């Protein structure tokens, strides 16, 4: 028998909400860093140095993780929009 306090975790929507928040948090942290990185374009040499740095394997790996977070956020966000707006 499932513990009553864990009942809410049996719901698909609960996991959707958690994944949407976690992926959204990652994307929200990335957003200002992305803006600041683009701001380096004020000095083309500084941006090129930064772009060289992004070719490091660890940065590439975090870019893949970020793309995965974006896909998760997008899919669960579209699912939520359809759920709320579609005339069922």
């Amino acid at each position, binding site marked *: 028998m499932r513990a009553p306090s864990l009942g809410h975790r049996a719901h698909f929507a609960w996991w959707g909400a958690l994944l949407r*928040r976690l992926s959204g948090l990652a994307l929200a942290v990335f*957003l*200002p860093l992305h*803006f600041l990185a683009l701001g380096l*374009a004020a000095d083309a040499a500084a*941006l090129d140095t930064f*772009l060289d740095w*992004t070719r490091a394997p660890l940065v590439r790996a975090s870019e893949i993780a970020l793309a995965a977070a974006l896909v998760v956020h997008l899919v669960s966000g579209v699912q939520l929009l359809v759920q709320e707006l579609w005339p069922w």
Partner: protein
Amino acid sequence: MTEFRLFLIQRITSGLLLLMGAVHLVVLLVAMQAPLSAAAILARTHASPFWPAFYAVFAITAATHAALGLRVIAREWLGWRGTAWGIGLWTVLVAVGLRAAWIIA
């Protein structure tokens, strides 16, 4: 602003981000045909005033969606109820985003 209005703004920005994100993805795929460089990025954004304007609107939309999303997380997980920090966060995100759009213009 009422909770309902904030909820509506979050849903409207999500729809806008879907559309503008699709455009951004196409730009990204085209840009990645060659190694990324400052010259290539600036050549693209300088080609037409459309791009800095597009990215300014995109940045404001993303900043608004992110700030409202972080507000939800802060309320649910940390119990933060205040509004000042949320408005402050939104202002900083919009400012940094518009600064980037201005620099690539």
